[in-house]
């Protein structure tokens, strides 16, 4: 089963973070990726730029064009900062994998809808 691990953390612009801190954060993710490879788990994942760089389209009204707005869909103190999609046996396995994943303020685990079954 495929699960998305959604990593939430306070908005961080990694370009402006001191190099040592950025290196340490990257090292944590490299360690997680080594864990995934070590277990032979199929995965993908990306990190997102901060929510200040987000653009959101909203319905402006019936029959009107979508409105382009500045900022994320929901303004939160902590935002989605990145994600992994992993192949896990079941939810317990996904939780175990997520425990190895670096986390800021929380990791949401969601099963992916499998259109094939």
């Amino acid at each position, binding site marked *: *089963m495929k*699960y998305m691990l959604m990593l939430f953390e306070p908005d961080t612009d990694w370009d402006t973070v001191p190099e040592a801190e950025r290196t340490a954060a990257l090292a944590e993710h490299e360690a997680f990726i080594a864990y995934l490879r070590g277990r032979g788990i199929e995965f993908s994942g990306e990190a997102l730029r901060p929510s200040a760089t987000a653009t959101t389209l909203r319905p402006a009204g019936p029959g009107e064009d979508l409105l382009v707005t500045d900022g994320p869909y929901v303004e939160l103190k902590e935002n989605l900062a990145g994600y992994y999609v992993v192949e*896990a*046996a*079941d*939810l*317990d396995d996904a939780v175990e994998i997520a425990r190895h994943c670096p986390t800021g303020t929380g990791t949401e685990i969601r*099963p992916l809808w*499998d259109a094939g*079954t």
Partner: protein
Amino acid sequence: MTDAVAEAHRRGWARVLATVVRITRDLDAAEDAVQDAFTAAVERWPAQGVPDDTTAWLTTVARNRALDAMRRERTLARKLPLLMVPTPAEPDEPDGLTDERLRLIFTCCHPALALPSRVALTLRLVCGVPTPDVARLFLVSQPTMAARLTRAKKKIQAAGIPYRVPAAHELPDRLPAVLAVVSLLLTEGHTASRGESLRQPELIRTATELAEVLAELMPDEAEVLGLLATVRLAAARGAGRLDDDGGLVLLSSQDRASWDRGLIADGCELAARAMRRTTPERAGPYALHAAIAAVHSEAPAYEATDWAQIVTLYGLLLRVAPSPVTELARVAAWSHVAGPAAALAEVTALAARPPLAGYHGLPAVRADLLRRLGRNAEAAASYREAAALTANAVERAFLLTQATQLVAE
């Protein structure tokens, strides 16, 4: 004859469902098949006689119904993924160490489900309580409860909550979610948080059965033994908590001769066994709660209670399970060691903290301390404050009577 079906339901429902679920890998389908099997029993047993092994009979019928339904529905597209039934590395131990019911209990009580959902699922799937009765027990409408159950079952299958018993090393993480369900049933059963009567015997019976099953299946787990001890001790003292009119009687005024000595001996033995399987510093909350109940139960009179021991146990409890309600209980016990004046200062400090605002226990304890200090008018006001905060009619009546008596004195 319906007695035979009722007895078979009590003994066999969970086992039959737990077995059929492994075939259907769908909770709803299994539930329907098991329900059908019980309907068949009601129809056939009066004419054909009650089978020797009712659970085996029901399992066979339910399994066949489930297989028929699966054949019929094979062509229909599934909306939900199937239940994750991990293939065991080895077949189940032939001595039956892995009880089917445990899989069902651990799945219904998975920590990824919210407590109210776990409780509802456990009552419905493990105990076989019909949905309208589950709704009634928790004073919610039937559609609300049905929706809660549907959502929870959908999450189990869609999120891939596995249908399995956790390995021994996972138990410390997984057991609390199970024990919390039984504990909530027990607490609600003995003191309903809402409604007209203090006790709900059905919930107590369900909690007792679950605690017994858990203790039978995990006889070496200190927390499980502690929970069963608490169940026994609460039952032993249950009758003494109510007067002839169904009113509340406090521990201090209870007739200890009305307590069931056999249950107390049993409960104290279990509490001691729980503590022997751990150490005071490492004991979990259920073993400690049991130890506290045991100290109360063994006291020949309220005044003869070993309060110092109870204060110590509450202190240990606060270390493993910090909670403002437990702090309040510790202060109430401590008042018998340090005196009501010192305790009153502690209660006032507790009241300043938000978690206890709106909790009727706080003004009730304050009222008792004020009464013992002879400050009757203030005590009466506190009893009335507590009465206004409780949603249980029997507790409210008790608190208002206390207030009235103080004013009369």
